[in-house]
């Protein structure tokens, strides 16, 4: 019943994580993650490679099941609900994958229309209008008949965003939105995220390791390192943090020596064993 009181305390939290742990085999990669995401805010999950941020994202969207802990999305614990209920929640969330993950055998328009065809009973002309609208929102008007293979990396990401927006989601997830793009295209994607935030007041969660992009789009940030949250707060709070690990990440200081990496490997392999 503790959950009920916390709902009353934080009425606007659309996502709440409580002591979320994830194991791969007998290795624990997330060691008790706690945070809230408020309605309408943009939360950036920041972290280096191997920090566990991608696992955290996969867990948030229900692709990975936490070993223990709770993830509440709009009041349902996605770790405990049935598959059918999880699929219902997914209809109200959108996800833009790192490489776009567009279906190669369909045109861009068919990609965007797919969720609408699957989950709504809309007539074809209505779907046609909606997909054009979504493509226009991401700056891809007129590309509906292109195949994904004909698009550049940045355009693929935009198309993926259009597809994620198709069902007018309440929560939008981005996995590494600017990874692999040149600075100008990456800035364009950042601007797109800002525009979406302004236009729809959507709750947006972004996983990234790009500092510039993170500080531009975030309302709040969570810095994750070796499966722990080392800091969280507003941009200003993070920027003024004196915590060594935060400073190292923000000031882009390399690991002092190889021993550090060995320690890291050791923490991965020895500490935090999961009970089989």
């Amino acid at each position, binding site marked *: 019943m503790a959950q009920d009181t916390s709902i009353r305390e934080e009425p606007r939290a659309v996502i709440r994580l409580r002591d979320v742990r994830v194991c791969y085999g007998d290795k624990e990669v997330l060691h008790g993650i706690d945070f809230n995401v408020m309605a309408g805010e943009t939360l950036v999950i920041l972290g280096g490679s191997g920090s566990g941020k991608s696992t955290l994202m996969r867990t948030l969207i229900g*692709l990975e099941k936490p070993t223990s802990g709770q993830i509440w999305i709009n009041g349902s614990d996605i770790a405990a609900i049935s598959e059918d209920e999880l699929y219902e929640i*997914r209809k109200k969330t*959108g996800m833009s994958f790192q490489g776009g993950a567009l*279906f190669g055998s369909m045109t861009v328009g068919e990609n965007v229309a797919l969720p609408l065809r699957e989950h709504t009973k809309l007539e074809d002309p209505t779907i046609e209008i909606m997909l054009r609208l979504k493509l226009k929102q991401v700056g891809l008007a007129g590309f509906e008949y292109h195949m994904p293979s004909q698009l550049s990396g940045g355009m693929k990401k935009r198309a993926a965003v259009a*597809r994620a927006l198709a069902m007018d989601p309440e929560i939008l997830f981005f996995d590494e939105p600017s990874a692999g793009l040149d600075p100008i295209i990456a800035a364009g994607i950042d601007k797109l995220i800002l525009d979406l935030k302004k236009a729809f007041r959507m709750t947006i969660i972004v996983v990234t390791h790009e500092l510039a992009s993170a500080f531009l789009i975030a309302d709040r940030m969570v810095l994750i390192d070796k499966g722990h949250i080392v800091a969280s707060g507003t941009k200003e709070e993070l920027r003024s943090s004196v915590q060594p690990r935060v400073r190292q990440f923000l000031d882009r200081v390399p690991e002092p020596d190889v021993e550090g990496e060995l320690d890291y490997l050791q923490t991965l392999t020895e500490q935090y064993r999961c009970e089989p």
Partner: protein
Amino acid sequence: MRIVSQLGAWILDGLAYFMALGKIAGRAAYYTFLGPFRGKPLRVQSTISQAMEVGVGAFPILSLITACIGLILAFESAPQLARFGALKYVANTVALSMSKELGPLITAIVVIGRSGSAFAAEIGTMRVTEEIDALETMAIRPVHFLVAPKFLAMILMLPCLTIWADTMGILGGALFGVLKADFTFLRYIQASVDALVWRDIVSGLIKSVIFGITITAVGCLEGMSTGLGPEQVGRSTTRAVVRSILLVVIFDLLYTGVSFGLGIA
């Protein structure tokens, strides 16, 4: 002691694999036969294109292979039959071995090579490019979207291909019959038809449906369990082919053994 524990581990792995196969086949069957009555319509377009790919696409190569096999069977059995003065039974030999055994088996092996591998490669690539994850985040079930159309296409097309393979095998045998065994073409065909009873053909068709389910389940499961990285797609594809052939032969043996035991072989 170590051998025993290793053996135990293998058996457990094998059982887990069979459970996974059963699960994917069961779910595909659910979306094929029950789903349409529970608001999850069949993907007709996708099923038709899969059926074209699995079935129609295999016709030329399957025809050639089974005609050759029919002919080879006739060549191999003729000397033995001739020793007993029973050369005229070459039509029976070819017709029975094609329809009961070789038709379904060769069809399955050709379809494994063409389509089982393609299923694993297609789904494996989608796994690597996160398209399977994307389907799930769009609340579209991968088994409903990807596996069920393949499943239905396979259980419809494999029996058709098998009938065709039987026919081509018999025609291959007829070539020998006409050239080397003093048959006229019509008499050879008549002899083949007389030799067959419905039970033989039906048993071949039942086998082909079992093989179709096996090929789809293995191909799709291997695709779904593809690891990270493009090189894993190749590995999944190879595994799909090897495991499908192995399982098809094992199921064939089980089916034939049980039929024999029940006295209906």
